[in-house]
């Protein structure tokens, strides 16, 4: 899923300074699962903002909505009938959702209520961790199902570097060395021969470095 973290309330209040009448839009997708932008979070954030603005002596009207997905036009269009009645939309969906609102409602400012994080998994209740950088050229079959681009702090293709000690990365005591994980996994799978091959230079053009990416499925158009 795409993860995120709430922006500090002070930062949101500063963003909302010019407005008295806004839409607060959540999303039932990833951000609901990681508890940062779902229906419940819309309610909590709206109440917090109302109270803060009331205390500051300047009330704010907030329309609360939660779309099935902010990244799909059919759901985003549900907002169109009333958008003209509001000065801005504060979205607590991921960066894609926030931008999609901006794109669809060209005259309404779209503001970010969260900081979008990464493509990750729920390791345990309340803890999410990154697993994929969406680089567009997957090598997981060669690395025991553990991604060197994401799990190694230097994205090395022939790790581990000299800073790997007892399974821990030199960057942070809480971070496991991605290459130790890969070596352990390749050993367990009896695939260590995969390690001994020089890998070609990665083509980052399939990643962010090639500019905004697009997928076109002719069979679906």
């Amino acid at each position, binding site marked *: 899923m795409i993860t995120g973290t709430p922006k500090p309330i002070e930062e949101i209040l500063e963003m909302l300074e010019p407005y008295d009448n806004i839409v607060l839009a959540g999303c039932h997708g990833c951000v609901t699962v990681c508890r940062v932008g779902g229906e419940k979070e819309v309610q909590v954030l709206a109440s917090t903002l109302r109270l803060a603005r009331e205390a500051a002596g300047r009330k704010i009207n907030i329309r609360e909505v939660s779309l099935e997905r902010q990244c799909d036009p059919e759901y985003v269009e549900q907002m169109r009938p009333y958008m003209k009645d509001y000065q801005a939309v504060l979205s607590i969906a991921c960066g894609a959702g926030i931008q999609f609102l901006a794109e669809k409602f060209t005259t309404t400012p779209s503001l970010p209520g969260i900081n979008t994080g990464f493509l990750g998994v729920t390791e345990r209740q309340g803890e999410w961790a990154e697993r994929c950088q969406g680089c567009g050229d997957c090598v997981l079959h060669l690395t025991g199902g553990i991604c060197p681009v994401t799990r190694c702090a230097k994205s090395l*293709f*022939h790790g581990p*570097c000299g800073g*790997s000690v007892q399974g821990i990365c030199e960057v942070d005591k809480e971070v496991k060395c991605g290459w*130790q994980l890969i070596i352990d996994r390749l050993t367990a799978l009896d695939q260590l021969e995969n390690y001994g091959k020089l890998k070609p*230079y990665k083509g*980052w053009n399939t990643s962010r470095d090639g500019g905004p990416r697009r997928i076109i499925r002719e069979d679906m158009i």
Partner: protein
Amino acid sequence: MKSGSNLEKVLAAGHFSVTAECGPPRGANPDIVRKKAAYVKGHVDACNVTDNQTSVVRMSSLAGCMLIKEEGIEPLIQMVVRDRNRIALQSDLLGASAMGVRNLLCLSGDHQKFGDDPKAKNVFDIDSMQLIHLVKTMRDEGVFPSGDKIEGAPKFYIGCAVNPFADPFQIRVPRLKLKVEAGADFVQTQCIYNMDKFKKYLELAKKEGLHEKVKILAGVTPLKSAGMAKFMRKMVAGMDIPDEVVNRIAAEPKEKQAEKGIEMCIEQIQELKELEGIAGVHVMAIEWEEKLEQIIGGAGLLPRPVVE
């Protein structure tokens, strides 16, 4: 000769080689480099110039190389893949070769977290293994990785680094093997203090016949004090300093610890010199270049051979 560098010639002639390193200054004052160079001159076959080590901004490695070259020392340029993509790396390789730098050390580079710009974006477009391959391709095939012909291929004696003390130990020799296959001509190791573990590593490397394919230069760093040993052990990931080493220097009164550190370093070089498969020593006297003559001379490695 692949590069015609002095280091390559000394090693090819079968001499036990000596390299050292100069860290460029945190500023644009060339006299600091010249002062360090004066301590190095005549005592080494080549001198490494570090590339923003520990991610702390310093004068560029290439500029440092040119300054020590002017002082009559053969430079060995260190190049990390942390700060430059493959375009910049190729360009700097061409530039360094054009300026007469003939030795190169290919490194990943310390993570930017450890430097004074921890919020910097890192690059790691290719890794150090791939940099070795890239240089070898440019040197031996005279082409860029894109396949285009190079007008004047760069000439480098290609080096890599290894840390036999990092984990997992089982992968350390296979990783060196991979670097050799990628094109490394020589290797400089991380500072060795745990000689038993290093000997185990060397035996495994020899089993693979690596000592015959790559010149292994053993890295040593003289300890200035027991405090320095404890600090390095605690703060530098992958630095293995056994208790007996720390205890030996700690047993001396404070004012005699530096002298003891030098004595221990000399002993260690002498022991390394006798090991089959060790082709030379890399003396990293960190901010202590003035002791190089004493250490290298003390180990019986002066004067340095002149090979035509």
